């Protein structure tokens, strides 16, 4: 499997398209500052949990790590992630093209993350 890091909606869409045909998992988090800390505390908690389970993804998978933007952008109810991907919160971990997703505290739970990566 491979990881692609993107920032913002257009980059996400483009990367998603280029991975067409392979299982795509995406983790959406708030932007990180110069010290590498996200404005989103739940994202800070979730990221290591998710990273620890990445080895459970199917071999050909693509893992897109996507920074959505700053806090103000995220709070805007019309931002592209909310409108087009129907995201309701960060962090969100989803299997692209399926209704399977984990939102906020669900991402803290290793077993749920593992289930998302391994279940059909």
């Amino acid at each position, binding site marked *: 499997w491979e990881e692609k890091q993107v920032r913002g909606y257009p980059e996400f869409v483009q990367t998603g398209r280029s991975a067409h045909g392979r299982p795509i998992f995406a983790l959406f988090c708030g932007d990180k500052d110069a010290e590498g800390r996200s404005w989103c505390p739940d994202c800070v908690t979730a990221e290591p949990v998710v990273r620890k389970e990445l080895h459970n993804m199917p071999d050909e998978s693509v893992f897109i790590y996507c920074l959505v933007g700053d806090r103000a952008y995220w709070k805007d109810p019309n931002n592209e992630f909310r409108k087009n991907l129907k995201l309701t919160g960060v962090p969100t971990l989803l299997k692209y093209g*399926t*209704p*399977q*997703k*984990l939102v906020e505290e*669900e991402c803290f*739970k290793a*077993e*749920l993350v593992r*289930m998302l990566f391994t*279940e059909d």
Partner: protein
Amino acid sequence: MGKTHSSLLISVSTRLNDQACENVQERAEWHYTDFVLSPEDGGSDGKALACGPAQCFIVSCETQPEGWRHPSFTGPAGGTAAATGKNEYDLLVIGGGSGGLACAKEAAQFGRKVAVLDYVEPSPQGTKWGLGGTCVNVGCIPKKLMHQAALLGSALKDAQHYGWNIAQPVHHTWSVMAQAVQNYVKSLNWGHRVQLQDKKVKYFNLKGSFSDSHTIRGLTKAGKETIVTAENIVIATGGRPKYPTHVAGALEYGITSDDLFWLKESPGKTLVVGASYVSLECAGFLTGIGLDTTVMMRSIPLRGFDQQMASLVTEHMESYGTKFLKRCFPTTVEKLENNRLQVTWKNTDLGTEETDSFDTVMWAVGRAPDTETLNLETVGVKTNSETGKIIVDASEATSVPHIYAVGDITEGRPELTPTAIAAGKLLAQRLFGQSSELMDYDNVPTTVFTPLEYGCVGLSEEAAVQCYGSDNIEVYHAYYKPLEFTVAERDASQCYMKMVCLREREQRILGLHFIGPNAGEVIQGFALGIKCGATYPQLMKTIGIHPTCAEEITKLHITKRSGLDATVTGC
């Protein structure tokens, strides 16, 4: 963190409440003969457990593998440890539908070790689906959504009268609706998976059958076997649509409700065979989205329901555009060269044989439990020889101790999601929560979601007459017109309601029947009144909300006995 010991996984935690401590205590004894408790826990070798308010177990083991030191007992918060000595699980539920999941999740709340087996045998046409059972996948949920799609079609027609500029006729695209419905159902499948995982309920996607009264053999599609043992087993495998037995081509060419909701392409010109609510509801929304739809009925519609109401339902469907072949039954189904289906049937009224071609033939001739593959005979679980359903007593117990059943699979129970859920929850509470409350199957409200909906609670008029005698009951009734129908110039001939009451002093309400828009929403509240033993005088004291259809119920005053015209006018 865990160690296997004689094929049991003992896992570990640090957050146990008092109840869970007790649970662990009684069960852990069995394991502790092989363990040595470290003295700092206040325990002594082999037996005693320290279980204090600190809620923290520390156990050390003499023969532990390298590096394994102090496991702690785990489970959900308030949770448990390994199950009783000889059985892996406290509760094993076979069937992940409405009843099964409710029972399993409730049992898990008590800190019990619970597992669910769910497996969907593909339909003869190859349709299959995920966790959640009939209601979620091929029943209530997709049905109500497609019913809504059809209602919206009617609303679009009405909209013109209310000033909207909508080009008529309006067209419907099946695949857009189907994909949206199917995606929603899939999100429910996922939601159930997450919930089970979250509540620490073990999920197996296996087809289960009994090896003995505490052992289930689970098979994957490929035939790989897993053995699961449990102290208590709940059978909640539900039912599947029946196929007619004496109709050539029925199995090869017909579909059922299992398939209808998962079709990617429109079913086109459809024949629905059957007089059940499944048949009428499906035929209803197919008509509503603009398809040429015919219902074939051998005798009466909605057997078991109040027959006057059932007639009004079918009358409305006919005026709405559904074709009816009454007192007919099919004899053959053949496939034509253009892939259409040629159906031949007998008209018992005229004594003739007739034929027509359709794109789709859907069988809605009843549902039957799938008990054959469960191997019930091996353990002695008794079933009704006619229906195949499992016989249970008032506590959902079968003829075998520690084996229970809930939901559609049980004999003599309503085949409804809310009753299965309630029965499953109560069962878990009785088994693990020191409750003795039994399920009450009286006055269960329900609704048939035909184009004009029919909601009811309590006895039908026929049942009341049979039970009390026509002299001892009073039936109040009214034909009404929903306000929304007026401007839209809609026919309200079948908008009708009736209330069956005891005639003697108290005049307790025995049954309430309502046909009209949003019948389910209307009847739900009244079900509470009926459950509390509401009487006609109490209802008359209840002020209605205006303007609604439901308020007409509070104003019912014309009796059938009087023979007066029951049409009520608006204000």
